[in-house]
């Protein structure tokens, strides 16, 4: 016997009034039961439960009151009392499916799967049509380790309720565990074909494909499922979550916006949304979202970390550092907050290299590690070596531009290259890597330990890390050791990796002079010239004549990321502008497309007495357009303490010299290396006064600047900075030296 309160067309209060009157008048058990349920609905559960207890005592043969009591207590989280109530209901009616299912769920939650199992077997026997009993039986069987039977139970649940996504997802998980994923995928394809309007098989196959690392196919399956049920929040969440972890940021952003519209309270969706916006360089929006999530949710370390990243990218260094430190205080044993701090500090003014090294070492110390592996690589010092390149960005990206030419010119008789990176796709630089590599493995979806084990299986002799602690980096895998020799190179190469398992850092005499070695945990592996080889893009525009004189007074420029623009740097630039009447400063980066951010920057100059009209803020653009905009610039100003890397190379290629002031950290010395390597060491200055003086002097001697500009591309092209064959030989010699060192030392 079941009883549902009849409340149609009435408010809870009205229904409650009617029921109370009726119960008082008739004292009918059914009316009293309805009253109890209505009390619960109306927010008076205590009153409802009292009624249910009275009814239960009054009618000891009726299982409905204790069942309802159990439900009420369970929804209040009072599981132990709920269990007693269900036990009472089952004592009165041992085959009531609702009681069996609810009591089994409580057993399962209390880690008593055997007891749950008995009840569910009974339930499935008496009410085989109850899909949730089969589903719960599956979960119970999984808990007792019977994967095959669990899969069968989920299959029955799905068969009886083919539109329940959760049942289908349980079955997917069971098939993975039982090793029958391929069969499940084939079955889902048939199910989708048989019922093309049902989104569930499509969604389930999407989840299964994703688990198999087949991300693009997974996205397609979920796109189709979402098309069939566009208003379902669970599907929208699955779809958006998958896209958020793919390179397709624009699609991810749109999908996340849709999913959030369907479920605005989900903090995970909003965190994902912010993360995707950051990848789209929309840091101001991301920061706003994350702040709102924190306000609503209270402190959370991972959200604080994301917020710190968004904040540093807006050039708010002190605030970002404070956020990272709050995350550390919340979660002191975790690696992520330490990593966040280590990624923020290189941008912060006044942070010495020792502080940076220690922050990086603290991060590295918190990465999980297994026992040190034994490498069986043959110790022949002169044999051909297998060289692994570990990176998420072997493509059109600073890592690609600064390393591809070096690998292309590495002696193929001495080195065979394996790329450990997501698939190359159509990206032109990625295709160059694909052309030079002997093998290409996608590490996406592999755990760090699994990646390390695979890499050892591939027989890699040297692994070069090109990702660092960036989003696409796999430093945690390197902590497990992929190869006997591990080397840090470009790719979030802000400073030392701090990782004890990183044997070397590829550098040069300008980046890491002997007096700075103590700030590194690795040994320096110095190349003969600069530590990178710039590969200028074939589509770079021609260099226009010096704009100064043609379009007015001198124009200074900085096309670096806003994260690098510090209050200190800004003060120095303001000084330069004060001493160069009429001169302008063009700042260009993605973040400046946001008007409030640009206004804030101009206001900071105004606070130094510089008329804001002298500051031109430009947002992001395509790469070729960016290069072309150097034709508006006479002299580039390097930010500090985090200097330009690829940006400085590009300025040089476009005929624009850069004034730079290196510090102690690796990140502060990129420009010094590139300029020295290209024969422009006279643009590298040791302190602020000489930074200002160098920029002012350059602006005062336009003929010299014009002459330099006219010949700069040819000079750079002929210099070691762009001499790929020379670089390849130097790189090969350095790698060979590192290998010989390993052979000799063990």
């Amino acid at each position: 016997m079941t009883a549902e309160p009849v409340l149609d067309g009435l408010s809870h209060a009205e229904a409650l009034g009617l029921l109370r009157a009726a119960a008082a008048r008739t004292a009918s058990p059914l009316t009293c039961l309805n009253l109890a349920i209505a009390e619960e609905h109306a927010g008076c559960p205590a009153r409802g439960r009292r009624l249910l207890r009275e009814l239960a005592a009054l009618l000891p043969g009726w299982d409905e009151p204790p069942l309802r009591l159990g439900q009420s207590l369970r929804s209040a989280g009072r599981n132990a009392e709920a269990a007693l109530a269900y036990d009472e209901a089952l004592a009165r009616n041992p085959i009531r499916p609702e009681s069996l299912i609810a009591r089994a769920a409580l057993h399962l939650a209390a880690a008593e799967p055997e007891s749950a199992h008995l009840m569910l077997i009974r339930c499935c026997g008496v009410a085989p049509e109850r899909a949730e009993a089969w589903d719960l039986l599956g979960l119970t069987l999984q808990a007792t380790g019977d994967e095959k039977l669990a899969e069968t139970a989920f299959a029955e649940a799905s068969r009886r309720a083919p539109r329940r996504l959760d049942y289908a997802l349980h079955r997917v998980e069971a098939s993975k565990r039982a090793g029958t994923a391929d069969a499940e995928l084939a079955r889902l394809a048939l199910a989708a074909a048989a019922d093309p309007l049902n989104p569930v098989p499509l969604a389930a196959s999407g989840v299964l494909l994703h688990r198999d690392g087949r991300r693009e196919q997974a996205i397609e399956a979920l796109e189709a499922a979402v098309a069939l049920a566009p208003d379902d929040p669970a599907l929208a969440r699955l779809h958006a979550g998958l896209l958020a972890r793919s390179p397709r940021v624009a699609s991810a952003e749109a999908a996340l916006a849709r999913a959030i519209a369907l479920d605005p309270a989900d903090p995970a969706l909003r965190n994902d949304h912010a993360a995707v916006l950051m990848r789209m360089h929309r840091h101001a929006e991301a920061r706003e979202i994350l702040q709102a999530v924190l306000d609503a949710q209270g402190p959370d370390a991972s959200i604080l970390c994301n917020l710190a990243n968004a904040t540093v990218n807006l050039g708010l260094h002190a605030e970002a550092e404070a956020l990272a430190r709050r995350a550390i205080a919340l979660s002191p044993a975790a690696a992520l907050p330490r990593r966040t701090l280590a990624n923020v500090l290189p941008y912060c003014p006044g942070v010495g290299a020792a502080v940076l090294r220690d922050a990086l070492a603290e991060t590295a110390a918190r990465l999980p590690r297994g026992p040190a592996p034994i490498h069986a690589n043959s110790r022949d010092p002169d044999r051909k070596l297998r060289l692994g390149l570990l990176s998420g960005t072997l493509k059109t990206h600073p890592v690609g531009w600064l390393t591809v030419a070096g690998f292309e010119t590495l002696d193929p008789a001495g080195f065979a290259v394996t790329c450990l990176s997501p698939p190359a796709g159509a990206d032109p630089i990625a295709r160059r890597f694909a052309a030079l590599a002997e093998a290409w493995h996608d590490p996406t979806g592999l755990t760090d330990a699994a990646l390390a084990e695979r890499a050892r299986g591939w027989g890699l002799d040297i692994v070069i890390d090109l990702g660092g602690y960036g989003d696409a980096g796999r430093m945690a895998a390197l902590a497990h050791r992929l190869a006997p020799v591990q080397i840090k190179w470009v790719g979030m190469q802000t400073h030392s990796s701090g990782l004890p398992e990183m044997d070397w850092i590829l550098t040069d005499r300008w980046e890491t002079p002997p007096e700075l070695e103590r700030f590194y945990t690795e040994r320096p592996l110095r190349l003969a010239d600069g530590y990178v080889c710039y590969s200028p893009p074939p589509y770079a525009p021609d260099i226009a004549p010096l704009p100064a004189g043609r379009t007015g007074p001198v124009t200074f420029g900085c096309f670096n990321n806003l994260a690098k623009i510090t209050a200190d740097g800004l003060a120095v630039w303001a000084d330069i502008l004060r001493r160069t009447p009429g001169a302008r400063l063009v700042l260009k980066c993605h973040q400046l497309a946001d008007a409030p951010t640009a206004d804030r920057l101009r206001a900071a100059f105004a606070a130094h007495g510089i008329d804001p009209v002298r500051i031109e803020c430009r947002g992001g653009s395509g790469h070729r357009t960016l290069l072309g905009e150097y034709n508006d610039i006479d002299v580039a100003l390097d930010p500090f303490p985090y200097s330009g890397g690829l940006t400085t190379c590009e300025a040089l290629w476009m005929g624009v010299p850069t004034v730079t002031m290196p510090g102690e950290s690796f990140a502060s010395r990129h420009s010094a290396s590139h300029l020295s390597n290209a024969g422009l060491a006279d643009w590298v200055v040791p302190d602020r006064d000489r930074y200002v003086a160098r920029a002012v002097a350059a602006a005062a001697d336009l003929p010299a600047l014009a002459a330099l500009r006219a010949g700069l591309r040819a000079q750079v092209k002929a210099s070691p900075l762009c001499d790929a064959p020379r670089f390849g030989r130097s790189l090969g010699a350095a790698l060979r030296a590192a290998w010989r060192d390993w052979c000799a030392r063990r």
Partner: protein
Amino acid sequence: MDTLAAAPDPDHLARRVREMIDNGQLNAARAVLAAVRRLSPPGPATAELAARLAIAAGQSDVAAAELDAAVAADPGHAGLRRLRADVRHRRGEHVPAAIDAAEAVVLDPHDASGKAILGVLMTELGRPADAVACLAEAVAAEPANPAYVEALAAAQAAGGATDLAAETLAAGIARCLGRVDLRNAAVLLAIRRRDFAAAEALAEAARRAGIADACLFGLLGHALSCLGRHADAADAYDAALKLGPHDPYVRHLVAAAGTLPGGDRAPSPYVRAVFEGYANRFEPHLVALGYRVPGLFRAALLRLAPWNATGEGAGPTLDLGCGTGLAGLALHDLPIRPLHGVDLAPRMLAQAAAKGIYASLREADILAVLAEPGPDYGLILAADVLCYFGALDPVLQAAFARMRPGGLMLVSTESPAPDEPDPPPWRLGPQGRFVHTAAYLRTEAEAAGFAVRCLAAETQRFENDAPVPGLLGILARP
């Protein structure tokens, strides 16, 4: 979690299918199309979607079947006709395609795409004047459609009006500044006119505007190489390689320029890429170039009449690198049947199949086919195919092994320029084809076991009115 209730709107789903096809998400499109089919009765819109999906999946036979049924049900639907014209075009069925396109233009005279398809087909059917008329209307309606502009220029060039074609492309470039395909077409046209300075200027303008891909740098290298500026050409090829390191066309061009070590034959992907790209234009192009080899083969066979010796036919015949079947077309009325063709390029084979003269056609590598066990041939044809081989010994030896005694092999080769001092036995020419000396061809043929019955200098074709020198060889297995 609640049960998922899907009550989608079929029109919305159809739009999603279209978007998914455009995004290359064919599996998703297939799944959603199945839902559309469940929700809506069969009709032209669904058939069109299904056909587009099949085209995107490379299943032209499925698309054709879908459209045949849909057109039969609704013969007055212009969209279906246009789409079927496109499918038939892809399948090399030019005349039926043209009929569909013409029907579509009649049914919907304001639609530019039907005129454009008809124009392209007219070019390919050797009727450039009609093509120009159709395409000019399409371009007038949509002057910023780069595909129409390129097709109009191609039609004008096919009709000999290369100046007009260049003007058309220049106007198109001015309207569609970012389109690299138009830039490449203009550079290619200049190269075909042997106006290498103009080609360089066009390519440089594109480079300066930042509208340059691997192909453009490859063409620039080609133009510079023809101007004798080999160092500059090497730079251009280097840029081409950076942008398209895997592009077989670029790699072959670069190898031809001597920047990469050259192989001893053109790579199969190169041959396939070149001819897939040109499949639809190949035949008119060669005929317009005064392609003489099929005629030379026919004259040689009529002179030798090998069928007289056997008393029956001279076949079976194997046509190596049969392409669109031009040699077969020239010879198929002679007693040389059955005629079997082999080529690397499926679209060329589709055109050969449309001629209905081959007993079999295979998409395969020549050396692989010759290496297979099988019946011996009485006649092997190698028309304009040895130019994709450097060293000839493998192909000649393999062919010899598959011939019956008394059988003939007819070959054409390209030769070094008559004034080239001391040419090597073979080398890769700047056009990406190999040239061979007569002495080398004779030596290798004899080494393979052939008796050389004839080795005559013959012009192969004309490029920009200049004869391309070559050889006609008649080799007999004793």
